[in-house]
């Protein structure tokens, strides 16, 4: 949308008076500090990370770094292959991340939609409920990971107690340690933490819906379920898509929650956790940077695709 506003602004008669010259100068003056800071904290470190990916850099002495080309990604020595793209633990991390993102974002979307619909209904104490829903979002990820770590404790955890109390479990489950359940434990905490965000974005979409089509549907006696699928869902689809994209980009880079809840366990290791383990714990800055670069490329590709597609869609909607 911004770009449409932009073209009309620049297409306006470009009479370059002295006034607008000085405006332009001060605009750049205002922009420079921000651009410099972003270049220093984002641009430069990113370029260095990509560069390190082509070197044998080690954390103990970064000055002794040597260029080794693509060896961090792929190399062959005496018929043996090395490098990220033949490293099973890297692919395990990739698979974990994709599985986690797909499952958690799907559940969050479904739950977020339900919560948004409920919050959009009229009932007493709605403001209070909306405030309560924000609590998980406000709690720092680390804290929620610890809170849930305690609730999921295999011996003293309240979740086992509840599930055994209502007869769903016959014996305690070691949620975060058992390979069968560890990833589900991560998904559970993530769903708890981020469903509010999803719900709020969808709710914002719901509140912009025109009331008259509901009125018409009601007069015609159309079943509410049908109205939901035929009217509501198509109309709030853009809002849902934006929320899904934001959450998906966030889920793909997940680090904090997994690191705290299950540590460096390979059952739940995400791409970010893998990269940091190589970088810091194993001091393999070169190899870890190569992994970070791959993660960056995945997310960059997704972002660019999203923004380009989003622009096309938004442009199409503008009359």
């Amino acid at each position, binding site marked *: 949308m911004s770009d449409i506003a932009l073209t009309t602004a620049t297409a306006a008669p470009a009479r370059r008076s002295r006034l607008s010259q000085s405006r332009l100068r*001060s605009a750049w003056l205002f922009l420079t500090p921000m651009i410099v800071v972003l270049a220093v904290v*984002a641009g430069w470190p990113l370029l260095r990370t990509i560069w390190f990916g082509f070197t044998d850099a080690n954390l103990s002495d970064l000055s002794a770094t040597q260029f080794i080309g693509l060896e961090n990604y792929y190399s062959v020595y005496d018929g043996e292959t090395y490098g990220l793209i033949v490293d099973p633990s890297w692919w395990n991390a990739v698979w974990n991340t994709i599985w986690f993102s797909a499952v958690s974002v799907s559940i969050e979307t479904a739950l977020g939609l339900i919560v948004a619909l409920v919050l959009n209904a009229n009932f007493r104490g709605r403001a209070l409920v909306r405030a309560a*829903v924000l*609590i998980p979002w406000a709690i720092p990820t680390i804290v929620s990971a610890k809170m849930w770590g305690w609730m999921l404790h295999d*011996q003293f955890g309240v979740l086992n107690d509840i599930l055994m109390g209502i007869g769903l479990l016959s014996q305690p489950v070691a949620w975060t340690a058992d390979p069968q359940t560890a990833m589900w434990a991560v998904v559970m905490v993530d769903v708890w933490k981020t469903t509010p965000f999803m719900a709020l974005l969808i709710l914002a*979409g719901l509140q912009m819906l025109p009331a008259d089509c509901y009125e018409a549907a009601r007069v015609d006696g159309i079943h509410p379920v049908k109205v939901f699928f035929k009217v509501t869902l198509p109309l709030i689809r853009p809002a849902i898509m934006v929320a899904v994209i934001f959450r998906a980009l966030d889920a793909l880079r997940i680090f904090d929650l997994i690191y705290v809840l299950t540590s460096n366990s390979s059952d739940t290791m995400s791409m970010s956790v893998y990269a940091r383990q190589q970088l810091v714990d194993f001091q393999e800055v070169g190899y870890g*940077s190569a992994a970070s670069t791959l993660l960056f490329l995945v997310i960059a590709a997704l972002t660019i695709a999203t923004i380009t597609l989003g622009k096309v869609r938004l442009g199409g909607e503008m009359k």
Partner: protein
Amino acid sequence: MMRRSPLKTLGLYALVAAIVVFSVFPFYYAILSSFRSGSELFTVTYWPSSFDPSNYISVFAEQPFARNILNSVAVASVVVGLSLFLGVTAAYALARVSFRGRGVLLFTILSVSMFPQVAVLSGMFELIRLLGIYNSLPGLVLSNLILTLPFTVWVLTTFMRELPKELEEAAVVDGASSWVIVRHVFLPLMWPALVTTGLLAFIAAWNEFLFALTFTLSNDMRTVPVAIALITGASQHELPWGNIMAASVIVTVPLVVLVLIFQRKIVSGLTAGAVKG
């Protein structure tokens, strides 16, 4: 308004109750656990039965937790101040002045906010060591800017773009400089937006973990999330859960209070950042 049948009303309230319990219970349970110590902590309970503040005392006694809180407050405040200052000036240029390359610049800023933090980790590590600010608060301020700055610029730009054009025209005719326009025309109107973005930036910096974990070494330089994540007991399998819960409650209560007070502003800020993205 439509009248609902009693059955539907019951269903709605059941759903509402489920949502509230699901949202609040973990926090409630953490508060409950934080006031129980000794062997009592290791029995499950659902209602407050005792009030033992010893966890709250030991969390401060066993590690420099007060120092960690101060660190977090200092880092987050400076980060918010810097981001807002750089954000307002940049947003003025991006929203009110048309120039070549504006679209590209906005696009770049938006994509920086999508960066995975780990993608800049090794480069940032090198930079921080080069500047001699490893294991210090300035290092954390510097690295946190990557999280807060793009977002601040983006939200403030969308906000400033919506202000009417006539606002600055009079000032321009009077020959006011851009700096004067920003300070005296826009800033007074922008308080709501500044509070919202500042709050969101504060929460982002307060919660930041990866940089704080990687760029600090000693206990008294750590921020709260790292301190909580690294609380350990006598052995790895005997985590002092009471202390951890007490620390969690201490750092969460102010945030929850803030969020409840500024609920509406936060919601509008989040949706402005996302929907218009």
